[in-house]
């Protein structure tokens, strides 16, 4: 069975949904408490949504310094697959594991509604089973999701294929930056998700786990979770099992 860890911070509130979604996607989900340094032998890690440590100071920043995140960083450096969803994306950005930062929504409101996103690439561990390139419908629920990086970084991300998801219109065309409801938070270049240069750490603001079963109104998110689960399974079968060697216990 493919064991995938879901980190539980104080204030995480999508951990149970994410554990369930991973199970639907075929994994054996494992909850990992923020105060533990051990990853309990999981083969991939998901940082779920919520308000880790109350989002005090800045969303994700306090969580970054928790014992579990030191291990997650080491696991990522060893090539382990890590996915951050919403608040989990903010934690990854604050930890420098993915490029950029998440600013307050341009429209100032906390947004909880469905959006459309499209995978820019279908050859990554996070998207290869997400289907043909088409808009995927799933919810966002955040107050600070406006993706920011400087122009030079944005150019580099696009050049190197690190933009993983963008907000799109129903016809699949890219959403605008300002005043376009299809881009819910005003993210620069309509970026909804990015990954690191090595392609093993990714974050996105929308919630695939909230759109992983027909009963939830959309199954479009399941492909993202299945991509992660199956990529993890394949890597394990090939003998690629990253560990957190070197982590102080």
């Amino acid at each position, binding site marked *: 069975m493919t064991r995938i860890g879901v980190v539980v911070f104080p204030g995480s509130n999508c951990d149970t949904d994410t554990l369930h979604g991973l199970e639907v996607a075929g994994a054996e989900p494992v909850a990992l408490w923020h105060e533990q340094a051990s990853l309990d032998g999981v083969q991939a890690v998901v940082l779920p949504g919520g308000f880790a440590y109350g989002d005090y100071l*800045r969303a994700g920043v306090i969580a970054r310094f928790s014992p579990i995140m030191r291990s997650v960083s080491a696991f990522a450096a060893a090539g382990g697959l890590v996915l951050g969803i919403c608040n989990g994306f903010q934690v990854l950005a604050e930890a420098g594991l993915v490029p950029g930062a998440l600013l*307050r929504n341009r429209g100032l409101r906390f947004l909880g509604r469905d959006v459309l996103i499209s995978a820019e690439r279908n050859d990554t561990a996070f998207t290869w089973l997400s289907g043909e390139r088409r808009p995927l419908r799933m919810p966002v629920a955040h107050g600070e999701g406006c993706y*920011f990086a400087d122009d030079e970084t944005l150019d580099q991300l696009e050049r190197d294929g690190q933009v993983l998801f963008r907000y799109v219109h129903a016809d699949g065309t890219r959403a605008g930056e300002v005043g376009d409801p299809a881009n819910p938070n005003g993210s620069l270049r309509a970026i909804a998700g990015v990954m690191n240069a090595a392609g093993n750490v990714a974050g996105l603001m929308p919630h695939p786990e909230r759109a992983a079963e027909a009963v939830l109104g959309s199954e479009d998110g399941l492909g993202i979770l299945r991509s992660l689960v199956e990529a993890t399974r394949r890597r394990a079968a090939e003998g690629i099992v990253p560990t957190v060697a070197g982590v102080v216990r």
Partner: protein
Amino acid sequence: MSAIAYRFAVNVTPKPGILDPQGRAVEASLGHLGIVGVSGVRVGRRIELTVEAASEEAARGVAGRLAAELLANPLIEAHEIVLLGSGAPGAR
């Protein structure tokens, strides 16, 4: 050498050019107060803290590390450290 308590304020502000929706909202509300001629509103945060160290330089070093690694995100925020006062440790 006995330590001295240094009280600092760390002022964190959005870097120039970085979108600041809070600042814009505040600015947009000024008209409701009948105030004109105010522009360039930027909203940041101020953190006050006490550092015990042998010298002001050493204390500033600690505050500077805290500011750079935790209190501000250097991608999007600038910070300045202002000495508010100093005295015997434990005194408030």
